[in-house]
């Protein structure tokens, strides 16, 4: 019994043990160990990736229903691990240059990743909460890691205070759901609800309020409008590679969790939550595209861009169908690569040994470093959704699912906002190609950056050619979510 | 009317009588503990100690008490009045309420609750509030430094104390104090007391209660040579007397806790003829007196710790060691199948 449970949670257990070992190792090794621990952390994530991808774990629930293993979770875990691996890879060089190389950073990132995997596998309101807390707590610390820097401390504090508030909302909502359904287990909640609804009952208002609170809390974690206020400040204040990490892996984990919570226990309340998701998706898309226009700091711009992207992903969730979830999965996969690639470019924006982060500083990049300019162009075009790049397919699948589900207005507004969004993505391309260069960036950008840049741009450009494994994986994952 | 008498009035009277039966002797014990302290330390330093008031100085504590009560209560002008007055009262009350769960003999206990040891631990962890409130409310530097020292010290040593208690609890399988005592009853008499199988834990527990009661060599909160009298600088008269009473009553309480956890409570050292004629409460008092003697002995022997050494000892020595010992005990209990049966 317990052996099966442990086998099913093997990747998580491995990550937990590895993180504590790395921590001990770092503590004994002292300050010099940071880069070594960083490399080890990437290796650890790679092994976890292998355990999920190759390991033949039994599917089903473990630990008395607290933990679930299915194709849906596995797919998203792989995406999260890739994102986290890229994140750690990009961090090391940066923290060395900035003189803040502390071995705790990669260890905390591994722990945050562990939290994300636990969120994805959560099958109970309680395990949802502990996973979410593990992830958030690690992220609060990483955001504030540059403690002598006012902006970083502010970012950490803001993130922490608002995050604590959202955790409170989650708990409040969970307690209400527990009170009205008598269970915290997703399967039991779903069963109780469908039994109650099939006997002609209407959902209790208290249950709906609880659901709304849970939605609000998760929307906060994925920074969907109207719970996005913290995003620009935190993204701007946190060290850039940390921002890259924030914008990718936690979002994937959060939205995965969101989809699981809404379709698993509350699947029979689709009419109730659909309107919430439609509103949140609309607001995120509109705000993400409009507010980004006047940004001059590229990290803030990416913050609004990530808000917008979450909006598009939520369109898939709003559809409430299997095709919608499939779209969501594909969208998030592509988003990770676009995001990581863009941040690799941002991280390479160094002039005379210091970071610059204004859009102005990109002037004439095509002349000073044409390859990087090309890569950034690819990412921007992809974000804008221009075919045949990957970003187009991401948007296409979610909008198609929304139209199929009868949410034509939502899809139309989505297309309109992505046109508006294209404006500021194209503006960056314009700055790079048509403005005169003022100063060139430091070279070389480093092996890790080159790797991340190459992998992401190859993925984005050639997605059209080898999309079928990802499409198939997503389809399998989505059907797993709807089978249960 | 009869119902009122039987249901409410009579139990109340009984409880009040029980409380009186504990508090009265306790206060006298506190009074004579102060005398014992001066006598014992005097003897160790080849002095006579107080010997003028009454035969052998036996009336000295009462003379001290009368003196303290006659003095004027001084309230510093910048003090926070309510908190300032509440602090000594809190210290004193806390040192008394804990006695509710202490078993003096088999069945001789006011309230035999299931989680007795946790109650004791909780009350002893509250003791810090008296000190910290006094230090803050005095609105003066030395008391404040004393309060901060005390807060950090007590919180630090509580951790290892908790782990020590956990070790004992694992051997007993119950949180009830009477059960803890009875679990130490066995064929080998004295050797069954946890002080022997868990000797290292007993030593750590003893050192931790020195720190928990702010006694020498951990009396930094009041360290008179550097911060005059710490949190008690501004206190005088009755409020000072309450602190004094509280501190000594706490010492007795902690000694009683040590006697229960490690020295078989009211059990005689050997369950044979001359020993088991003597009633349990007397054995219990003797054990408490022994631990108290060790308190005084330590005070007469060791110099005061430096603050960083104090913290180092608590966090870097006791905490890892007790943690290790908890694991070891658990391992032995499981490995040799010695786990206590469910009560």
């Amino acid at each position, binding site marked *: 019994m317990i052996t099966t449970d442990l086998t099913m949670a093997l990747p998580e257990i491995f990550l937990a043990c590895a993180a504590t070992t790395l921590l001990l190792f770092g503590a004994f090794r002292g300050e010099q160990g940071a880069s070594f621990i960083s490399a080890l952390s990437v290796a650890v994530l790679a092994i976890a990736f292998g355990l999920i991808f190759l390991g033949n774990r039994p599917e089903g629930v473990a630990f*008395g229903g607290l933990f679930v293993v299915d194709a849906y979770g596995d797919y998203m875990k792989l995406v999260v691990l890739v994102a986290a691996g890229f994140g750690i890879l990009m961090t090391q060089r940066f923290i060395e240059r900035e003189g803040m190389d502390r071995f705790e950073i990669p260890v*905390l990132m591994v722990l945050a990743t562990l939290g994300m995997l*636990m969120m994805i596998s959560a099958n109970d309101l309680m395990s949802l909460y502990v996973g979410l807390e593990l992830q958030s707590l690690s992220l609060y*610390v990483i955001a504030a890691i540059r403690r002598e820097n006012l902006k970083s401390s502010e970012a950490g504090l803001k993130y922490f205070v608002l995050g604590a508030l959202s955790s409170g909302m989650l708990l409040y909502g969970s307690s209400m759901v527990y009170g009205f*359904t008598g269970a915290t287990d997703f399967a039991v909640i779903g069963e109780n609800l469908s039994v109650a609804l099939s006997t002609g009952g209407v959902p209790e208002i*208290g249950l709906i309020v609880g659901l709304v609170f849970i939605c609000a809390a998760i929307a906060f974690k994925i920074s969907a409008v109207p719970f996005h206020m913290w995003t620009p400040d935190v993204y701007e204040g946190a060290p850039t590679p940390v921002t890259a990490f924030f914008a990718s892996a936690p979002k994937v984990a959060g939205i995965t969790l969101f989809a699981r919570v809404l379709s698993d226990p509350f699947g029979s309340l689709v009419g109730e939550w659909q309107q919430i998701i439609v509103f949140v998706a609309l607001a995120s898309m509109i705000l993400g595209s409009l507010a980004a226009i006047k940004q001059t700091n590229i990290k803030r711009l990416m913050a609004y861009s990530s808000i917008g992207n979450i909006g598009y992903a939520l369109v898939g969730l709003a559809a409430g169908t299997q095709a919608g979830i499939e779209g969501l999965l594909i969208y998030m996969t592509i988003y990770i690569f676009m995001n990581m690639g863009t941040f690799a470019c941002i991280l390479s924006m160094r002039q005379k040994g210091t970071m610059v982060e204004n859009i102005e500083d990109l002037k004439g990049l095509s002349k000073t470093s044409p390859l990087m300019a090309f890569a950034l162009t690819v990412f921007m075009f992809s974000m804008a959704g221009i075919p045949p790049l990957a970003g187009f397919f991401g948007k296409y699948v979610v909008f198609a699912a929304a139209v199929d589900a009868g949410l034509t207005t939502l899809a139309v507004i989505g297309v309109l906002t992505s046109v508006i969004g294209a404006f500021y993505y194209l503006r960056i391309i314009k700055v790079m190609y048509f403005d005169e260069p003022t100063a060139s960036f430091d070279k070389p950008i480093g092996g890790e950056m080159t790797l991340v840049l190459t992998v992401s741009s190859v993925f984005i450009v050639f997605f059209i050619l080898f999309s079928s494994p990802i499409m198939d994986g997503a389809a399998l994952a989505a059907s797993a979510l709807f089978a249960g | 009317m009869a119902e009122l008498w039987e249901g409410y009035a009579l139990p109340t009277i009984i409880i009040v009588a029980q409380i009186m039966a504990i508090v009265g002797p306790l206060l006298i014990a506190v009074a004579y503990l102060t005398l014992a302290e001066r006598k014992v330390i005097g003897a160790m330093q080849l002095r006579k100690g107080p010997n003028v008031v009454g035969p052998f100085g036996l009336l000295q504590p009462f003379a001290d008490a009368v003196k303290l009560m006659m003095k004027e209560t001084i309230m510093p002008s910048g003090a926070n009045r309510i908190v300032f007055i509440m602090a000594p009262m809190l210290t004193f009350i806390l040192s008394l309420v804990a006695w509710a769960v202490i078993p003096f003999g088999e069945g001789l206990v006011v309230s035999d609750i299931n*989680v007795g040891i*946790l109650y004791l631990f909780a009350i002893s962890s*509250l003791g810090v509030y008296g000190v910290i409130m006094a230090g*803050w409310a005095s609105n003066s530097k030395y008391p404040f430094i004393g309060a901060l020292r005390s807060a950090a010290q007590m919180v630090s040593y509580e951790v290892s104390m908790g782990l020590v208690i956990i070790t004992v609890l694992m051997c007993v399988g119950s949180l009830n104090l009477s059960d803890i005592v009875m679990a130490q009853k066995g064929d080998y008499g004295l050797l069954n007391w946890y002080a022997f199988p868990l000797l290292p834990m007993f030593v750590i527990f003893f050192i931790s209660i020195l720190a928990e009661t702010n006694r020498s060599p951990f009396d930094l909160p009041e360290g008179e040579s550097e911060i005059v009298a710490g949190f008690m600088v501004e206190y005088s008269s009755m409020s000072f007397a309450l602190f004094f009473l509280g501190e000594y009553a706490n010492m007795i309480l902690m000694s009683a806790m040590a006697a229960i956890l490690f020295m078989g409570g009211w059990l005689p050292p050997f369950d044979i003829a001359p020993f088991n004629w003597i009633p349990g409460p007397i054995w219990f008092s003797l054990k408490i007196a022994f631990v108290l003697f060790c308190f005084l002995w330590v005070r007469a022997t060791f110099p005061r710790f430096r603050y960083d050494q104090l913290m180092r000892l608590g966090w870097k020595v006791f905490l890892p060691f007790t943690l290790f010992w908890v694991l070891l005990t658990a391992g032995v209990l499981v490995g040799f199948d010695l786990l206590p049966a469910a009560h």
Partner: protein
Amino acid sequence: MIIQALVFYVFAAVTIAAGLMVITARNPVHSVLFLILAFFNAAGLFVLMGAEFLAMILVVVYVGAVAVLFLFVVMMLDINVEKARQGFKKYLFIGGAIGLVLLVELVLILSSVVSTDVSVVASVPIPAIDDVHNTRALGQVLYTKYVYLFEASGMILLVAMIGAIVLTLRKREGVRRQVIADQVNRSREEAVEIKKVSSGSGI
């Protein structure tokens, strides 16, 4: 039963009053002290419910440790309450509105509870308090049924600890630390040098 009810109302009333004082007291230290009072009374309520283990743990952990450190910090900070309250009026309206909405929601929920079909609710078996006392009951599920949550909470606390150390530990230059091992390992030869001094000539 009358006494129980009376005690309940005393604990409950003091908890609420103390909670109110926490947010209205002008002096932050008083606020913390009232918070402690509230914790204490909450522990009393737990005892009344027969959850004596939780009550004691609440006192040990929250009152005995967390609140002490909290008080420690609040006492050391020189908080200007007047300044902190400047925004109070500005946010009173919006805060009040949100509070009102929540209140209305709660009332709606409470009124709907009355009509709830009881058969749907509370399907989880709870062992009766008489069968097994709650310390044992908690122990029986904590390391078996909920071991996953227990371990996960352990990880969360580990992260909190790492975070606290990372964000506060400063390596200061030029601090001389006591290394006890070095002190103990010092031998007489390296500590003192004995010289023969011939009389009358000085060193």
